């Protein structure tokens, strides 16, 4: 059984005051997320990611299609007690302290008061807010609110987590902590469905992704399947090279891109590696890395979506 | 089933609340209108409180006057087939508030001229004279003053009022004949008939029409006897 089942989900927004017009934000979306997966939900701005979350969270009734979570219809309250959600723009009652807010959320999830208080303290520690636990949310920065939102989504120790752009507003440290948190949850068998624009994060964390554009599913599957591997090509990163060396590299490399530290070179096959080493050793440069060249998610976006616009 | 819970609750409780309301209305001893009509006793203070909406406020008080009158009218006729305007203790204050809010409310003066004499003829005269002071160009108010004076048997004053009114622009020809009628046969039954006939024909107020019609019928009965 899939944990999240989305079938033919379609959402029209009505816009215009006098002459009402329908705008299709989501067009027959089909998606399945399996238990224990970390599933990335990608797409450019306005693709319909948040719309999907809003339907799953009972904010919108879809124009057509249906969805189930944990095999239950969306209105099932027992199912609701087993999931957690971080909204895209978290707003929480600003007159509450972070701790009070988490205890309140616990009460909404039927947690007994003492359990909720204990869990709130643990989670505040986990998201790095224990110093601000008794500060009013009014005085929280965007990133702090995002952390509080993450803690709130976890208050009932959910089996499935829905995170709409969990990394937005977080500092680099926060992002790494959030990545670790997600990895941790995954290790404990939780299912995580999240949207993001930060492709490196997605590449680092996801088992599978779905890519959405203008409300339609463009592609879904394992990253390794989606991203083309370019036959035998090799990508090498070097440092400490000068213009002369770059010119020399250009003679045999398919592509050379200068970087602040040195350069990135794409080679036709691993046979060219020896020549590359020779050139840079000669100039006292250093080899940083050698990898089979794989299309990055960014390239994929450029190719698939840039072309469609 | 679940879908219907809210609509059913809505209807059930609306019916229950209506029942509770009727239960309380039935239990009230004093009729609400009498007790509550006078939120204020002075039109002057109300005028200040109405922050410029005094015309509208005057309309509201005029409507209240008619509602109050109508309710009393129906009630008295239901009880003893008779209508006695002298029991309408709130009529005068209500009318006064109306004209204090809007001194040019002619309908209110005319209404007062017909019904106030039964309560207190002195104050009826004062009421209509106040109307004339506020609206000196309105010949109908002189007709009303003449009517009020005639009912007090002050035929000289009545003749004077008609004479003054007949000189105003727009006054009809019959107004000029009234002073003579008053002076010569003020107390005659024929004069009374004429007065009430005029009232009946001139007025478009349903209450005044009903009352003057009843008076005419009574006069006709006398004549036949």
């Amino acid at each position: 059984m899939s944990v999240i089942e989305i079938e033919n989900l379609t959402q029209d927004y009505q816009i215009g005051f006098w002459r009402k017009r329908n705008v299709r934000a989501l067009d027959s979306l089909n998606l399945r997320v399996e238990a224990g997966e970390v599933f990335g939900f990608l797409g450019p701005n306005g693709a319909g990611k948040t719309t999907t979350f809003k339907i799953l969270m009972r904010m919108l009734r879809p124009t057509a299609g249906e969805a189930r979570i944990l095999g239950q219809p969306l209105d099932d309250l027992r199912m609701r007690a087993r999931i957690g959600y971080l909204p895209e723009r978290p707003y929480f009652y600003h007159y509450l302290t972070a701790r009070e807010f988490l205890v309140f959320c616990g009460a909404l999830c039927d947690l007994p008061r003492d359990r909720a208080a204990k869990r709130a303290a643990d989670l505040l520690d986990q998201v790095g807010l224990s110093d601000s636990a008794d500060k009013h949310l009014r005085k929280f920065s965007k990133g702090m609110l995002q952390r509080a939102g993450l803690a709130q989504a976890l208050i009932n120790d959910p089996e499935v987590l829905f995170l709409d752009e969990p990394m937005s507003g977080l500092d680099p440290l926060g992002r790494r902590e959030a990545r670790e948190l997600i990895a941790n949850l995954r290790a404990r068998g939780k299912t995580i469905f999240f949207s993001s624009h930060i492709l490196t994060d997605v590449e680092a964390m996801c088992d599978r992704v779905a890519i959405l554009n203008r409300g339609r599913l463009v592609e879904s599957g394992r990253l390794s399947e989606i991203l083309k591997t370019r036959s035998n090509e090799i990508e090498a990163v070097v440092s400490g090279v000068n213009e002369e060396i770059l010119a020399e590299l250009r003679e045999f490399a398919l592509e050379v891109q200068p970087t602040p530290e040195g350069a990135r070179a794409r080679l036709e096959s691993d046979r060219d590696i020896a020549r590359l080493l020779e050139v840079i050793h000669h100039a006292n440069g250093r080899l940083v890395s050698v990898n089979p060249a794989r299309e990055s998610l960014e390239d994929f976006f450029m190719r698939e979506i840039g072309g469609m616009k | 089933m679940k879908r219907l819970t809210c609509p059913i609750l809505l209807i059930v409780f609306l019916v229950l609340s209506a029942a509770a309301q009727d239960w309380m209305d039935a239990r009230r001893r004093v009729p609400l209108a009498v007790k509550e009509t006078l939120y204020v006793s002075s039109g002057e203070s109300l005028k200040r409180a109405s922050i410029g909406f005094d015309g509208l406020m005057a309309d509201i008080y005029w409507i209240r006057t008619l509602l109050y009158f109508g309710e009393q009218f129906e009630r008295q006729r239901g009880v003893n087939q008779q209508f006695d305007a002298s029991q309408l203790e709130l009529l005068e204050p209500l009318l006064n508030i109306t004209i204090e809010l809007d001194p040019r409310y002619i309908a209110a003066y005319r209404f007062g001229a017909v019904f106030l004499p039964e309560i207190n003829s002195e104050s009826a005269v004062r009421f209509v004279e106040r109307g004339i002071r506020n609206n000196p160009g309105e010949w109908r108010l002189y007709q009303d003053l003449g009517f009020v004076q005639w009912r007090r048997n002050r035929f000289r004053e009545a003749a004077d009022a008609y004479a003054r009114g007949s000189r105003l622009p727009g006054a009809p020809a019959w107004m000029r004949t009234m002073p003579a009628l008053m002076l010569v046969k003020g107390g005659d039954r024929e004069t009374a008939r004429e007065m009430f006939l005029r009232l009946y024909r001139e007025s478009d107020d349903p209450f005044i029409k009903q009352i003057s019609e009843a008076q005419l019928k009574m006069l006709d009965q006398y004549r036949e006897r």
Partner: protein
Amino acid sequence: MKIIPIALNTFRESARDRALYNLMVFVILLIIASVVMGRIAVGQEVKIVIDLGLSAMTVFGVLMSIFLGIGLVSKEIENGAIANILSKPVRRTEFILGKYFGLCLTLFVSSVVMAAAITGALIYAQGGSDAAQWRLWPAAWLIFLELTIMTAVALLFSCFSSPALSALFALLIFLIGRWSPDLKLFAETSNSAAVRAVSRALYHLLPNLANFNYINETAHGEVAPWRMIAGNTVYAVCYIAAALAAAALIFNRRNFK
């Protein structure tokens, strides 16, 4: 039942709202002022303190219940807090009821504070306590009932129209509700059967708020009879239940874009 935590949280919101305290201080100052005014009108102290005190309580209470009542739901939709609630195991109806009862709790506490302030002012004005001072409490209870009705009305409007329009509608309903005897009179005396039917329907559909006004009688030394208190309480409960059912009906179908 998630109604209780939501209600308590709503109460906590208003308890931490500074504007509300300012309002209360203002009302209490007004009550104190009524003592001074009572001194000027010799022999009328008690009447003036009760008149002014209970009237101020009504006016501020109604403003509070309308404006806070509209904010209850519309503010949560506006700022997105609703997303957090709906994702949790909470029924939409529970949310509406929790919000409503939370504000009622606030109104109850502030009504008690204001009635206590009036009682205090009376004790001071009369130079000692007197059993008669307690007769204002039944009148205060009626005012509280009126406030809870107005809150339900404001909440109902805010479920389907903008806050500004809702405020306007709710104020209109308050005015018409206070004039409901005239509506009844109109229903009984009109010549046209259609007008009679419409005004009768309106009379029963709109809240009959005039019944809750016992200020004048209280100021003249009457105590609201228990039958009236009971009848009004039953009426208020039924009317509020109907209004909340309508609010839930609308709210259950709404989309939050």
